């Protein structure tokens, strides 16, 4: 049996949980699934209606606001009750926060950020990026006990989930002996996003390859000629070269414009998850092996400081 851990945020099922179900179905090849839903509620009903497996709903007041201590206690208890062969979850910030603690406590291996499954059943191995996405590693969990797998957001398709006859939600009780060490306050957003990049038709985005703040003007001229909004990868916003609300990626905005032009962006996965849904992607980078070319439709390998002005000049020519 494979146990999927669904993620509920503010009473709503995180969509990435469906991707975890898809990953588990692929790894199991027909093996039965159980889906534990810490927090239960509508999220549990939604999963039960899809008929993807036995839905175990855990409702407890301590689960109202996520803390790693409570989450580890709950998932560890459900694992003890159900004895799964494999545990699958989405590689969200929440999973990153508690899964290593869960695996360390149970002394079971954790394969994080999985992008593919090779084979199925007990012999399955897992693919995950290493070295900033420059390499893919095929890894095998070692030792005894169920391995825990967290799958990268977007690597498995939610619409690939094979649905079955609706099932009933089964309530499962968890004992929480100790109050969590963490006290949490309400989530908040820094100043309202002044720029809604998700509505932009075209985006010109800059990364580390732009090298200096005063060179951003080179990209801005291209954006003006293209009728595009400016965006950036995380390091550019960390340096304060562009405001935080221009950041695209897992910690910034998710965009899917008609055209996305990546200038000097190597394509770390944290950036790719925020833009790989764009209809047409252009990458300009001096490094032919940069991971950005894995998602690009058009690429130019070369010096962006030569190519971008040429591109701007070309767009400014009367047609």
């Amino acid at each position: 049996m494979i146990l999927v851990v669904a993620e509920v945020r503010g009473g709503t099922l995180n969509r990435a949980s469906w991707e975890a179900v898809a990953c588990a179905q692929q790894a199991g090849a027909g093996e039965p699934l159980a889906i534990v839903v810490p927090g239960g509620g509508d999220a549990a009903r939604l999963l039960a209606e899809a008929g993807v497996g036995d839905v175990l709903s855990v409702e407890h007041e301590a689960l109202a606001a996520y803390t790693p201590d409570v989450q580890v206690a709950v998932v560890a208890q459900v694992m003890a009750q159900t004895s799964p062969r494999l545990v699958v979850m989405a590689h969200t910030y929440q999973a990153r926060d508690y899964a290593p603690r869960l695996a360390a406590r149970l002394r079971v291996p954790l394969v994080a950020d999985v992008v593919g499954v090779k084979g199925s059943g007990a012999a399955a191995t897992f693919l995950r990026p290493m070295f900033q996405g420059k390499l893919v590693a095929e890894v095998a969990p070692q030792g005894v006990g169920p391995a825990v797998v967290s799958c990268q957001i977007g690597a498995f398709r939610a619409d690939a989930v094979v649905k079955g006859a609706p099932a009933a939600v089964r309530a499962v009780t968890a004992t929480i002996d100790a109050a969590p060490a963490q006290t949490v306050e309400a989530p908040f957003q820094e100043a309202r996003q002044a720029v809604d990049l998700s509505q932009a038709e075209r985006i010109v985005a800059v990364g580390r390859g732009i090298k200096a703040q005063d060179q951003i003007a080179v990209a801005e001229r291209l954006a003006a000629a293209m009728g595009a909004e400016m965006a950036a990868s995380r390091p550019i916003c960390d340096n304060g070269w562009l405001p935080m609300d221009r950041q695209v990626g897992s910690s910034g905005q998710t965009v899917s414009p008609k055209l996305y032009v990546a200038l000097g962006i190597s394509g770390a996965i944290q950036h790719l998850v925020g833009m790989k849904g764009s209809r047409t992607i252009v990458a300009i980078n001096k490094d032919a092996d940069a991971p950005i070319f894995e998602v690009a439709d058009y690429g130019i390998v070369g010096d962006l400081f030569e190519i971008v002005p040429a591109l701007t000049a070309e767009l400014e020519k009367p047609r």
Partner: protein
Amino acid sequence: MKIAVCIKQVPTREWQPRLTDDRTWIREADASFEMNEPDAYALEEALRLREKHGGEVVVCSAGPARVQQVMREALARGADRGVHVDAPALAAADGFTVAAALAHAMREEAFDLVLTGLQSDDQGHAQTGVALAELLGIPHSTIIMDVEAGDGRVRVKRELEGGWFQWVSMPTPALLTIQSGINQLRYATLKGIMAAKKKEIRSVAPPAGLEPGLKILALSLPSKSKQTALIDGTPAAAAAELVRRLRDEARAL
């Protein structure tokens, strides 16, 4: 406040991977190394906390002898001393194994606060810090963008997805994994570099019976999800061709 910072030495970002003959690891002899970037931010945060609250910053690292290079760099930036878990096999180890090696050396030090980067630029498991907190029996919080310390507690700003944040408080001792960009990094001064030469790095043998939790069967180049049309030629010719194709083929302009 007694603060530990765990740092990892990783290949530089510019380095192009070259593999060993059995394709299960990189050819380390061909790589150049640097301090893992998120760990550099963790170090900077520790130095700032020491400036505010006093105390000591101890840099901890697990790996082969070469990792002492980044430990010296941390000492040059202002850390007080180092603890090195010295074992060649830890170079390619998984997150839990590294955490177990560090916990073995760090437990007796009884740190008030342990900081790590949120993940490493090499294997990127994003597990070492959190697993270390479990092994040390202390609470943790991850992906931290601000730290307020005092009165036996820390209040930290945790990054959530999509531009959301949350303040989380917990008693110390505690472990925090630090996000890149939390602060502005300082560079080592000449005086710092000279002073670092005299600072102590204590070498510790790894604990017995460390068994890897993950085995790397093969490393390979990623397969492309799309066929990229690469456009070459002079900058002007490539630009003209790209604009033509974006207009006529992709209809994106």
